[in-house]
């Protein structure tokens, strides 16, 4: 299997992504090919999780990966690791697509939500990523229900926080606080940061 997924765990080996990005910024296509192998799986997985539609997801994932190529020189190591940088681009683009679609066709979205078909059958089952998924699940279970629902509606569904508040029937101020303290708890549980 060519696409070995390297996750952002603290002790993970694998290619030095920062170095690859620096080479990509200089137009090195071989470096981009290696960077692609490291990030394409997470990019497509996240985009699919948000968009659900496989064809549209591939289209958006392609846009994301090409944006990485175009903007590699804008990556700043002091602002964080490569994977968060790439996945922030991926999430932003997926959410933009959801909102554009929402504006155009709320009815389709309701239909899609009602059918709720799981679209990711070919989930990569490398041991590494299975362990990672289990840890993420465990940490998500450690949140309060409101924290978890606020975060998952925003992150996986692309809801704005007023939409989250409306769906959950909770005041706006409460939602933004729960999103923040939920993320703080997740961050600590996953051991992110210093």
């Amino acid at each position: 299997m060519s696409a070995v997924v390297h996750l952002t765990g603290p002790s993970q080996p694998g290619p030095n992504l920062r170095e690859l990005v620096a080479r990509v910024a200089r137009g090195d296509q071989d470096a981009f090919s290696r960077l692609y192998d490291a990030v394409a799986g997470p990019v497509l997985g996240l985009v699919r999780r948000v968009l659900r539609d496989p064809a549209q997801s591939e289209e958006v994932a392609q846009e994301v990966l090409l944006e990485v190529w175009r903007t590699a020189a804008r990556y700043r190591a002091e602002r964080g690791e490569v994977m968060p940088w790439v996945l922030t681009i991926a999430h932003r683009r997926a959410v933009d697509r959801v909102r554009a679609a929402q504006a155009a066709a709320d009815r389709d979205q309701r239909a899609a939500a009602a059918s709720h078909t799981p679209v990711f059958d070919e989930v990569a089952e490398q041991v590494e990523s299975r362990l990672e998924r289990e840890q993420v699940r465990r940490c998500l279970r450690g949140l309060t229900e409101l924290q978890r629902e606020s975060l998952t509606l925003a992150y996986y569904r692309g809801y704005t926080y007023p939409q989250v508040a409306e769906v959950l029937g909770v005041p706006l101020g409460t939602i933004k606080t729960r999103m923040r303290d939920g993320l703080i708890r997740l961050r600590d549980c996953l051991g992110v940061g210093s």
Partner: protein
Amino acid sequence: MSAADLHALTGAYATHALDPGENAEFERHLAGCPACTQEVAEFAATLARLGAADSVVPPEALKASVMAALPTLRQEAPRTAAPPADTRRLARLRRGWPKLALAACLAVAIGTAGVAVQEHREADRARARAVALQQQQDLVAGLLAAPDARTATGAAAGGAGVGTVVWSAGRDRAAFLASGLPAPAAGRTYELWFDDAGTMRPAGLLPGGDGALLLSGPLAGARGVGVTVEPAGGSAHPSSAPVVLLSFS
């Protein structure tokens, strides 16, 4: 929205859950808030773990089409004081050269004196500060590159030093660049003000006589900007005569 309210938006910002207006407001706040910048970076890393946990094996065809598209795309140049992508456009503008000169001044100001960080100085972990400086620099450089950016320059009242304001009506923002102003006495700082038809609105603090500051808050029809010397921490209203006064015209 108050600063405390804005701090609470770090989570919603990191999950892209703000509407465009709030997002822009929060990003302006972020530029002067190293603690928020640090938190947002950590949240992005946290969310990346969630995202990466959904990893799938992409179809081979995706890689083929991405690789095939690379030669057709122009890669962006790194962001420096003035984004090179905008340089040509800048040069074509009538006011092109003064702005390029300003961009160079900005780079020097940042290299030597640094950019004023308005808030949370108590929390300025070096890394977060560097990030905020960079963002502030990007924001000021972005403003310089705005197609409708205009500038006004004036000598300081005491004769030493020069202040320049850059503003863009389209972006509804202004930045101030100080060059060679006398360093404020201990326990004092320069404070920037928007002149709202004679009422002065606080627009940020500049602790030294050199540096660049993206003014906080929108232009909102202000007539110009003023600079006064105030006690460290700033005042709600000017308590001394202006050192520099520049009008938006």
